[in-house]
């Protein structure tokens, strides 16, 4: 019977492969098309603009004729992995929430597809009028979807709401020095900080503006009201969020007129949805599945930085800089990027910052793969039988445990024994932020949605930061100075100096930077943004 069992398994597996390889492109397109046209027509006719006469004409006749006509506005389905706990854009720190709300809400400052700061609903990136005040002017005539005006009052309300000590939100870390806001006139606001803060425009690029009236309702998290290109329609809990284009949007109504964000945690199911044309665009494609889908996209630069922190403090087994440099030379980062990550990952340039983050040092290069040099340095430092603990985590980021194991294998190659320890996640955090007992080595997947070196360097290159494992140095002073340096050129120089110091001291083994990967059907014309968010308004759909 065992033989029969394995035969069945083999047969099923083969059949499954064959069917998935050659099947199922047409099967669902017929069911989708009528649904799209029928739901579209009423929307178009109610917004009686001159251009809609075309749509109105096609609406009346039979379905076959309606299908033949060019799609007036398309409906797309986006497959997300996680469901957000709330759609209150100030309440939770979940990427799925940002992905949806980026289409519903506006910010004073936002980012272009390449990741550069650009004005959002503000007229410019803001002006520091003194050491503790940034002034912003809001574009006139913008309203929330419920009719409330987006003016100075709305901005002040949005800021006071999120900094309220009684309002529990994990997003306070993004706000730094922000302590208040004042209305100057109908469209002008002063944003108050506890000290000079060059990051205010950056911080405001993560702060969504909410309507003063509607956001006080207890169910705002389930019925969000924004001012962006899309209006919230419904949230079927555990299933999907529906949005529709705002026909009166100031930038013109977008091409995609309806969007459904579905929540499918199981990766294989989500992928099957794309293969079956039920999902037009999905997040978090595994690199090895790139050839199975019509299209895939990666963000132009990585969003997760994979590094191994080394304990440079006196008394640590890796306190000698030569050992830490050796641990860098020992690891073939190119091989990790190409082999483990199928070429989608980029090798970090001997620093934690990405090229499109403020503070990136363009003069730094990765430590090359040179195991002989690593062995020589270890011998020189008298560390021929080095044994250290390497803490890591699993299931938090793409291939995190696997990357750790590869690093340990490279180290073993030069004679360093790394004992990998993967604790439960909250214990991992406890170890990562333990100021007293620093781990010998700890793998960290770091991201920084602020795209500014301040957060990364304060946390990882400052001896008093949450996660740095070094003794106090000049870098501490440079980071502290940068935090209040309003001259951006001077601030960049400070961060470049910090990056150089960290590189020379080999505080980390800088591995690779992992982009977000998306998959989609061929009816989508789109490109991935640097911040990994999905702007529905940028998507074009062919029928």
């Amino acid at each position: 019977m065992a033989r029969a069992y394995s035969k069945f398994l083999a047969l099923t597996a083969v059949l499954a492969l064959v069917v998935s390889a050659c099947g199922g492109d047409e099967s669902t397109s017929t069911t989708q098309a009528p649904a799209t046209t029928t739901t579209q027509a009423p929307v178009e006719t109610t917004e009686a603009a001159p251009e809609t006469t075309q749509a109105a004409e096609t609406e009346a006749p039979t379905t076959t004729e309606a299908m033949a006509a060019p799609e007036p506005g398309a409906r797309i389905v986006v497959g997300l992995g996680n469901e957000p706990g709330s759609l209150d854009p100030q309440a939770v720190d979940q990427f799925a929430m940002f992905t949806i709300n980026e289409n519903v809400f506006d910010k004073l400052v936002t980012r272009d597809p390449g990741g550069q700061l650009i004005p959002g609903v503000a007229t410019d990136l803001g002006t520091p009028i003194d050491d503790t005040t940034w002034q912003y002017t809001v574009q006139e005539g913008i309203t929330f979807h419920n009719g409330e005006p987006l003016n100075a009052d709305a901005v002040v309300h949005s800021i006071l709401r999120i900094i309220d000590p009684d309002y529990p939100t994990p997003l306070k870390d993004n706000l730094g020095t922000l302590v208040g806001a004042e209305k100057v006139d109908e469209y002008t606001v002063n944003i108050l900080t506890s000290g000079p803060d060059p990051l205010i425009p950056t911080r405001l690029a993560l702060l969504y503006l909410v309507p003063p009236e509607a956001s006080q309702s207890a169910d705002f998290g389930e019925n969000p009201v924004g001012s962006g290109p899309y209006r919230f329609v419904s949230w079927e809990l555990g299933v999907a969020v529906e949005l529709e284009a705002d026909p009166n949007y100031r930038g013109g109504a977008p091409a995609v007129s309806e969007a459904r964000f579905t929540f499918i945690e199981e990766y294989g199911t989500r992928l099957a949805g794309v293969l079956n044309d039920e999902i037009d665009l999905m997040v978090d494609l595994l690199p090895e599945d790139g050839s199975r889908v019509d299209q895939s996209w990666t963000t132009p630069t990585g969003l997760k930085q994979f590094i191994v922190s080394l304990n440079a403090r006196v008394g640590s087994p890796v306190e000698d800089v030569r050992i830490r440099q050796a641990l860098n030379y020992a690891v073939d980062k190119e091989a990790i990027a190409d082999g483990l990550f199928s070429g989608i990952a980029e090798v970090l340039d001997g620093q934690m910052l990405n090229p499109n983050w403020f503070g990136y040092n363009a003069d730094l290069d990765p430590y090359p793969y040179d195991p002989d040099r690593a062995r020589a340095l270890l011998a020189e430092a008298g560390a021929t039988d080095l044994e250290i603990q390497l803490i890591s985590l699993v299931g938090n980021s793409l291939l995190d445990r696997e990357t750790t194991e590869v690093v340990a294998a490279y180290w073993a190659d030069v004679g360093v024994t790394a004992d990998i320890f993967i604790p439960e996640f909250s214990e991992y955090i406890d170890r990562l932020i333990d100021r007293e007992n620093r781990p010998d080595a700890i793998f960290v997947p770091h991201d920084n949605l602020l795209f500014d070196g301040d957060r990364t360097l304060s946390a990882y290159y400052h001896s008093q930061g949450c996660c740095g494992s070094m003794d106090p140095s000049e870098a501490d002073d440079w980071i502290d100075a940068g935090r209040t340096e309003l001259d951006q050129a001077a601030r960049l120089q400070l961060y470049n100096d910090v990056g150089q110091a960290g590189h020379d001291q080999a505080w980390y083994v800088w591995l690779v930077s992992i982009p977000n990967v998306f998959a989609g059907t061929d009816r989508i014309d789109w490109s991935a943004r640097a911040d990994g968010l999905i702007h529905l308004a940028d998507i074009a759909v062919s029928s």
Partner: protein
Amino acid sequence: MGRYVLKRLIQAALVVVSVTVVVFVVTRLIGDPVAVMLPLEATDENRAVLEAQLGLDRPILVQLGDYMADAVRFDFGDSLWQRRPAIDIVMERLPPTMVLVLSGFVLGLLLGAVIGVVAAIRPGRWMDRLFVLLGVLGISLPQFWIGLVLIVFFSVGLGWFPTSGSGSLRHLVLPAVVLALPILGRIALVTRSSMIDELNTPHVKDATARGLSRARIVVAHAFRGAGIATITVAGWELVGALAGGAVVVETVYAWPGIGFTAMQAIERHDIILLQGVVLVIAVIVVTINILVDVTYTLLDPRVKFD
């Protein structure tokens, strides 16, 4: 009978309270929700603030006492993830799970019982062997794997069913079948073996001697005796489908039930919501157990209470 049921209800209440206490303590020992909610590099200050706002900085016994005091008033706390009453979320997600679990259960029970009975009529023949093989496959194929295989085969390949989601009968078919498979397997095997035993008992032989038809003997005499074992297993299968199978199947098919909710709660360390899910499942499980015990007496008058 009335006294027996009352006694069982008191026992059931004790079980539910113990489960609540154990789950409460265990979930608070194994992980810190704040660690999951905040970025890796969150400042100690912000960690402390959020912990205090969620009431997680108090001693665990104080937290437990408050939880029990609130629970008496049917307040089971607010989900950390969704910021609204955990029990509301669980109750919203319960109907889809009931639809799925009951469909899968009935499908598995009926097919399993039929297969078991048919297999037992001629043990050792090809039909019996085929059915036993089917039963063993149903039990041993991992549900998440067979779930994905069915999606690839029937949704992506043949286009008969949607790959995931809910809302129509077509959405229900694949998850219900996957949930039914192990139930079908175990019910079939148990029914088969107890049917074989029953068919060899004196009263069945006596019935055969009296010249009753084979069909009548199998259904009215043998199955009535074998049914006790089937019901016992069926009770367990229902519990297993609800507390285990639903988590896997709902996650694979993105079916918005309490199994999927449990998965979401675990991933986000939402201990309050997880507690709510476990509580509701515990209540249903003890209820099923009582119902199974009561059903025994209806099937077999020899079974007496006390």
